[in-house]
């Protein structure tokens, strides 16, 4: 039973602000993912929850109780990092039993708890193996079991799958979520992989430069991004620059990139406002010549297996646009074909042109 609240938490290191006024509630039993570019404050947030850092300003509450001044030890959160830090001189059963020693349980009781955990991670028949004899993925599972041996219901994960092979990561992330749900854990999972977050989180929190810009379930954060940055960071988007030509009710007519057609979109900006029109590659349909609104020439096709990324250059502004189609649909289009693009008005997002400039807003620093 752990509900976590961060109340106006700020933190700086040597005068450099790292977290700025974070307000966040993570519900009991929730699987919460923190995402954001490197240096955005994800790990610092996690460490403040764990009690490894104390905030300069603000409070941390567990189950509505202020734990800001409670030591990390007493908070008792289970933690797991990118590199499994197992004791190499102990076999994996001893590793998992280690946190139980502190509890002065009878030996057969702690043995039972440990064996149960090993069963849950499918390693019961390797109980007497040493960490070095196990693969990276297995070691990471042992680290998970050990983290939970203390009986903690709060699990804090810092890039737990970051060091593993990509294919294995796909399997283990599902396992991690299933494990958390079966054991009714509250999980805070830091990752820089937004696909991972989309696939397993109940809710996602997106950090940028120490600020929590948006919190929501995957569907919400994907469909209703609050800033161009969020839209671009989660899966990516095309950007078209333009201004509002006309508006009737909440339907605006936009002139973008000086293309011939006006584009209709929802919003209630003033006529003359400079805007960014964002359309995700997966929201665009391709047509042979007629059928769409904007015309373009196919310049590249790039198969991702599950879908195909088509790059086409808009006539007029000469601007490259990305479109994602199914493999079967992509077979209808070749490089150099002239195509037209269509998109649903519900899949478009219009934002005010960023005050600090486009690059400052959306760029993910390489």
């Amino acid at each position, binding site marked *: 039973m752990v509900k976590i609240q961060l109340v106006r938490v700020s933190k700086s290191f040597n005068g450099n602000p790292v977290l700025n006024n974070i307000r966040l509630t993570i519900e009991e039993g929730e699987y919460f993912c923190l995402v954001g570019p490197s240096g955005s404050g994800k790990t610092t947030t996690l460490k403040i929850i764990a009690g490894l850092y104390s905030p300069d300003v603000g409070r941390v509450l567990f189950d509505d109780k202020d734990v800001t001044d409670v030591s990390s030890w007493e908070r008792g959160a289970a933690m797991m990092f990118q590199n499994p830090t197992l004791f190499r001189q102990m076999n994996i059963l001893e590793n998992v039993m280690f946190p139980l020693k502190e509890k002065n349980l009878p030996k057969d009781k702690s043995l039972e708890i440990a064996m149960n955990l090993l069963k849950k991670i499918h390693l019961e028949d390797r109980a007497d193996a040493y960490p070095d004899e196990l693969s990276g993925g297995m070691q990471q599972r042992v680290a998970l079991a050990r983290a939970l041996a203390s009986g903690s219901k709060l699990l804090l994960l810092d890039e737990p799958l970051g060091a593993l*092979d*990509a294919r294995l990561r796909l399997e283990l992330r599902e396992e991690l979520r299933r494990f958390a749900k079966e054991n009714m854990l509250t999980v805070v999972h830091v990752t820089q992989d937004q696909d991972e977050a989309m696939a397993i989180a109940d809710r996602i929190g997106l950090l940028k430069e120490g600020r929590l810009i948006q919190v929501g379930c*995957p569907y919400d954060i994907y469909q209703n991004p609050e800033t161009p940055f969020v839209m671009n960071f989660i899966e990516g988007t095309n950007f078209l620059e333009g201004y509002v030509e006309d508006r009737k009710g909440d339907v605006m007519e936009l002139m973008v990139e000086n293309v011939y057609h006006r584009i209709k979109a929802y919003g209630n900006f003033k006529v003359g406002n400079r805007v960014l029109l964002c359309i995700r590659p997966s929201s665009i349909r391709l047509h042979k010549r007629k059928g769409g609104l904007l015309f373009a020439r196919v310049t590249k096709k790039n198969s991702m297996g*599950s879908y195909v990324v088509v790059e086409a250059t808009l006539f007029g502004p000469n601007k490259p646009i990305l479109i994602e189609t199914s493999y079967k649909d992509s077979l209808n289009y070749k490089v150099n074909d002239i195509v037209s693009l269509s998109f649903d008005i519900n899949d478009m997002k219009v934002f005010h042109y960023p005050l600090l400039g486009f690059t400052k807003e959306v760029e993910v620093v390489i």
Partner: protein
Amino acid sequence: MKLKVENVSKTYGKVIALKDINLEVKEGEYVVIVGPSGCGKSTLLKVIMGIIKQDEGGRIFIDDKDVSHLPPEDRDLGFVFQNVLLFPHMTAFENIAYSPIVKDLNPQLRSRLIEELFLFGKVDPWRNRYPEQISSRGIQQKIALMRALATGSKLLLLDEPLCSLDSRVRISLRQEVKKIVKQLQITAIHVTHDQEEAMSVADKIVIMQKGSIVEIGSPEELYYRPKNIFTAYFLGKGNFVPGKVVRRKYKESAVKCGELVFESYSRFELGSDVVVFFRPESIIFEKKGYNDFTGEVIGKRFLGRQIELLIKLGETIFTSRALRIDAPNLDVGDTVDFHVGEEDILIFKFPEGGLESAFKLE
């Protein structure tokens, strides 16, 4: 430059790291070698580089020249590694200029080459910085790539070059690397554990497992028409259903999996134990008169660009994936009809030791 690897094996005592590898890379091709940890992909790259010596009998040819016994410096290759290995006491410019100077290239040609590379890589703003003054590892790695290209070598070897970078950065940088390599008409061999990275940049993918090459082909071929069941599993999500061949006429077969019957093509004998495989994208929500099924939606997941459905028929659970704009409007609890095209179904021999061991990643 082209490359040929012939009968290359490498053993360490009893451990077999590479087993009879044969591989040809054409001029200008971008080849990605991919496989799980410990499959031998890095060892193979190091044998090509010349820093690991292959066992007796194996040979490496670069542009038809036998380089099997040449030291790395005489093989005329460019390298980029997972860890950025720039000379720390040299600026970005000096790092990139290092090889042309050592090779004693004529000064005019040299400065033109270097300027071109700065332009290509868009790393000009960092020209006079030392590696430690460049905070971004992505930029550091790009400078390392430029330095490798400055050797003038037309064969570039990349060993997990993007592995230590953020996922977002990785996605944009991998496209950039491919673009640069293609513009300069370089042959590249890129090793990675990331099947998605492989799919997105490769002209040709080489799948390795346990020291051997499992399969070679284009990304589409290997994703939709793999010849090996491990390839099918490794490159992405798939539906794998064990069954038995119950009918066969020429190449047309019917496979019975519990209550379900799949019609497709194969050459397995009547009664063979097989596995039916198709991608989640191959499930179509309509009826066609054969290979039609009816099931219940038991799970739905929003993945962003795609919607994933879990559909239960008896004991079997199928995964379907469709792009959001193509996806049917279904919810958990709904009954659904679907079809899988016979050309989208592949039939594999049931692996000895079972599916689980055939799919072993660790």
